[in-house]
């Protein structure tokens, strides 16, 4: 435990050092990144130990504020979240050290590094905190520092807007958590988590709903996700990677922690989770499909993947509820493994997006194209990330989805309607999500990296430097390794699952062992696949070696002058699907048709604004503003009226209270 705390201290000191050296960009970056990396490595060691051995470590210190105690603990659940937090943050820090240097002329780099390291500490503390107040403080440190990171480029109006939305969403979410912890603490008589036991079911129901809203806002459940598509694109890319990859997972962590505290789950909790997961998953990917901005697209994919994770949790919870070890173990294993996987591939994708942004100065998909030739490393790693996020074998994304599938399939075999209906929903949702994700990422990768450059932005693309490359390659390698070694990972997850499900040890062990056997098969298939691919590649080389291989133009159907502008765009690529789901997307189209014999100008523009934002939050805000502006009549500057208020108040009080 002390190693862990020392790690945090190192991170903090690094941040502080870079804050002090803010004017010297290179030094600031070095201190910030070095602190983050060294501290993460130090602090992740105990996390790994706990994960593998399942021995909980704790540390308690009196804290001189009301109800507070500095009570931290690493158990297996914490460890599962700590490992990606430290891992991704360290990798992203290396990336950031190079990425931020682009701003060295305009910006003081001390602040972003300070807040980056603070964000890292906040996340780590959230996951280990075992006192309600400490949790809330850490939670807000995390939110605030990420807010400052989101508004790094605050000169831009859109960035400020994003920061504002983010901040407000976080604040409202935290309000729910405040109530959550107070109610919990009231029941237990203390805000320390270890004092809580036997929550009565009526209270548990309330607490569950509070947790869903409070943690769900952070995690990005539909329709609480509105901040996500704003905040992620606004932040510097390595920060987006961390925010999307691990920070929103603290919401998932909170939910998992809450579930372990709240006792036996009634069925409706499971249904709520599964439905939220399915809705977030499907709608998230649908909205992603309709986006034109790469980082915004990725942000919506975070909503989608949170949906998948939530489906996993819901399935696992259902397993507890139905007393089905298969479902419980596979659901939670799949969900939590997806937490790690998503951290890896989403981190990778955001870093890739950052590299594109860094060298092309735009994230608008339809302005890019053909940069695979100029940025081969970025393109390759982005491709790996895309395959992983689509849940395609043989990479890690497939494994976690596979486990969830396997759980509902297996469970559905044995049970009746109550087992089959969740299976039906989960299979339908996951299959649809898979298909749509594939559409989305073929669109993104295809339009950005393949074909011809569509604008000058894409023309100026150049490969990024070694730091950024290293980070991306590392994450890409992790995508593969986590896929290949998934059986080992799953097998070692028994402590975690045990802590969450409260099942007996043999049950968990047996289920995990059988899951890992299945996964070995998958690994076997994957290895063969690689083998065959290798063989065919060699064969193809041999076949073509002596022959005539020519380069020419793309087959143009006889039209002699195809320009880059004639390529299929991202918008047109996604159009059949967005049309199909226009009920949800409500894409607005602005067309100005070509007119006349020699048309000069015509334009087509689509805009898909968020459905919940447009039809829930905006009208609500508008109504409240209207109401308030009406009420402002009360203070109209006349002294007489003001005295009248006093007189009336006094009169009413006297008459009322003296009655």
């Amino acid at each position, binding site marked *: 435990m002390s190693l862990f705390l020392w790690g945090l201290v190192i991170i903090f000191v690094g941040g502080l050092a870079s804050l002090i050296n803010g004017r010297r960009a290179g030094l600031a970056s070095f201190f910030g990144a070095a602190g983050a990396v060294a501290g993460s490595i130090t602090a992740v060691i105990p996390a790994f130990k706990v994960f593998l051995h399942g021995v909980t470590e704790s540390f308690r210190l009196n804290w001189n504020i009301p109800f507070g105690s500095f009570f931290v603990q690493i158990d297996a659940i914490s460890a599962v979240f700590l490992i990606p937090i430290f891992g991704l943050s360290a990798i992203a820090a290396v990336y950031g050290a190079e990425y931020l240097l682009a701003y060295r002329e305009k910006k003081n780099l001390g602040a972003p590094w300070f807040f980056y390291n603070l964000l890292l500490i906040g996340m780590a503390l959230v996951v280990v905190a075992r006192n309600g107040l400490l949790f809330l403080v850490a939670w807000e440190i995390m939110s605030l520092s990420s807010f400052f990171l989101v508004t790094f480029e605050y000169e831009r109006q859109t960035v400020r807007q994003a920061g504002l939305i983010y901040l407000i969403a976080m604040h409202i979410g935290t309000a729910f958590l405040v109530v959550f912890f107070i109610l919990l603490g009231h029941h237990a008589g203390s805000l320390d988590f270890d004092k809580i036991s036997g929550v009565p079911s009526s209270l548990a129901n309330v607490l569950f709903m509070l947790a869903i809203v409070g943690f769900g806002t952070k995690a990005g459940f539909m329709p609480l996700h509105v901040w996500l598509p704003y905040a992620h694109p606004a932040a510097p890319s390595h920060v987006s990677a961390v925010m999307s990859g691990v920070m929103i997972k603290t919401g998932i962590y909170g939910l998992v922690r809450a579930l372990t505290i709240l006792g036996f789950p009634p069925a409706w909790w499971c249904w709520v989770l599964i439905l939220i997961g399915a809705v977030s998953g499907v709608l998230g990917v649908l909205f992603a499909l309709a986006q034109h901005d790469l980082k915004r697209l990725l942000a919506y994919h975070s909503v989608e993947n949170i949906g998948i994770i939530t489906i996993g949790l819901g399935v696992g919870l259902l397993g507890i509820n139905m007393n089905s070890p298969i479902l419980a173990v596979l659901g939670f294993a799949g969900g939590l493994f997806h937490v790690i996987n998503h951290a890896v591939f989403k981190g990778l994708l955001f870093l890739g997006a950052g590299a594109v942004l860094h060298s092309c100065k735009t994230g608008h998909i339809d302005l890019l194209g053909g940069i695979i030739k100029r940025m081969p490393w970025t393109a390759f790693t982005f491709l790996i990330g895309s395959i992983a996020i689509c849940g395609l074998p043989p990479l890690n994304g497939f494994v976690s989805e596979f486990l969830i599938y396997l759980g509902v399939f297996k469970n559905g075999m044995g049970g009746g309607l109550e087992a089959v209906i969740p299976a039906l929903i989960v299979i339908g949702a996951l299959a649809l999500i898979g298909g749509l994700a594939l559409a989305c990422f073929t669109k993104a990768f295809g339009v950005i990296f393949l074909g011809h450059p569509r604008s000058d932005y894409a023309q100026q693309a150049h490969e990024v430097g070694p730091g950024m490359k290293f980070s991306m390659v590392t994450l890409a390698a992790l995508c593969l390794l986590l896929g290949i070694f998934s059986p080992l990972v799953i097998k070692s997850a028994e402590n975690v699952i045990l802590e969450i499900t409260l099942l007996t040890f043999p049950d968990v062990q047996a289920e995990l062992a059988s899951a890992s056997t299945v996964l070995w098969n998958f690994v076997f298939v994957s290895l063969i696949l690689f083998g065959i691919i290798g063989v065919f590649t060699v064969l193809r080389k041999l076949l073509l070696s002596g022959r005539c291989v020519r380069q020419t133009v793309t087959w143009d159907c006889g039209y002699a002058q195809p320009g880059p502008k004639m390529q299929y765009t991202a918008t047109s690529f996604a159009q059949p699907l967005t049309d199909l789901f226009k009920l949800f997307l409500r894409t607005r189209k602005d067309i100005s048709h070509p007119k006349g014999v020699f048309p000069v100008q015509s334009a087509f523009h689509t805009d898909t604004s968020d459905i919940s934002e447009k039809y829930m939050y905006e009208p609500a805000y508008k109504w409240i*503003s209207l109401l308030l502006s009406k009420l402002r009549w009360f203070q109209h500057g006349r002294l007489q009226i003001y005295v009248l208020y006093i007189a009336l108040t006094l009169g009413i009080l006297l008459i009322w*209270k003296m009655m």
Partner: protein
Amino acid sequence: MIYALLLIPAIAAVLSLIVRSNIFRRIILVTAAVSHTVITITAWNKEANPLLNGWLMLDKPGLLFLTITSVLFLACSLYAFGYLAGESGRKEQDFEEGIFFTNAPAAIFCACLLAFLTTMTLVTVSQHFGLMWVAMEATTLASAPLIYFHRHHRSLEATWKYLLICSVGIALALLGNFFMVIAASAPESNDKSMILSVLLQQGHLLNVPWLKAAFLLFLVGYGTKMGLAPMHTWLPDAHSESPSVVSALMSGALLNCAFLGILRSYQVCLAAGLGRFCQDLLVLFGLISIGWAAVFILGQPDYKRMLAYSSVEHMGILALGVGIGAGATFGAMLHAVNHSLTKAMLFLAAGNILAVYKTKTTKRVSGIMTIMPATGIIWIAGFFAITGIPPFGIFLSEFTIVKSMIEQGRIGIAVAFLAILALIFIGMAIAFLNMAQGRKDDSLQIADNPDTAISVLPPLALGALTLMLGLYIPPVVNNLLHDVAVIMGGY
């Protein structure tokens, strides 16, 4: 010791009227402030002797509010030291309307500031209801010229409203005093004095209807001064038109003193077994104030007025906290401390902003972070602190209050409270963030970095204090707050 507390600023006030040299006058101001604070701090260690048959005494609540006042005054006097160097007696052009006006002479300003401190000190140390009333009225009078520092018609209007509304309110409080006397003049009681400790001893003998009426009058009367809605109407005008130092003092110290007035009468009611009666009223006014403030904070075009409305909000929270009772009382006391520190910090920062941007319109200010980073950081930190975001102190106090609400099963109130706070957060976030972050206005002709140590350090120190109170409450402070909470019927 109490004499020293009262006499030092009083004498300094007279001195600053006499002294000719400007710099010397400023030194007097700061010296008086420092010595006042030093004596206050010694009062923490050594109990001060009661004086004048117990008319003047530093009990725990008095000590708490005296400390707040003293610390704030110290910070403000340091800030004023720099402020007066540039501002006083100068002819200036008004940036809102372009009219020309002069500022009041520094002598009057300093004297009134010190007199203000004297009267506020008197409020905190007086144990006699009549004397406290006198002191309270005197604070109004001492501060009126301060509001009229910039001599133009808007500040005049604000002064006029302040004077009249507060006078009406205080007059009602006087009536409350008389009612209290009547309530205490039951034939059985032998000591009919208006000294707090005597009244508390004879609580059970007090006449209930008269005491109730007296509390109502105190609530409305001192509530006017404290800024509880709907009697708060003078507050945004006065705060927005007066110099920022004065706004900081009024918001952070004066309002608290008025609150102390209400608390004193609440103490008597508690002794008479009327606790519930008072608490319900406090909750009611607390909620009205918070709600009313929210209405005006959202879409507020003037940032100083926004801060003023935020004061209304926080006064509402204080009332609400005491009204909820139990643990919330402690929260309310802690909140009083935190709010004063934070609000003063914000007003001082607002002063810096005003000096550079020459406008109070929120929309016309942007890019503070770029132009004056230190003030920008204070502004943002102050925003987070005032809206109750950890790790700042207000989070803790609000948390304690909400916790107590929920524990008492007053869920409706808790939900309303949190919802309104969220609204206020939204309103303030929009204004503050755009001001601090936004793009720098290129038309602005500004020297390199207008921040100076004297303009930045005082608010920064206040911010550091409130940050500390969010992370660590020293045991001494904690004990005092708890003692006060126990006195006020909570824990």
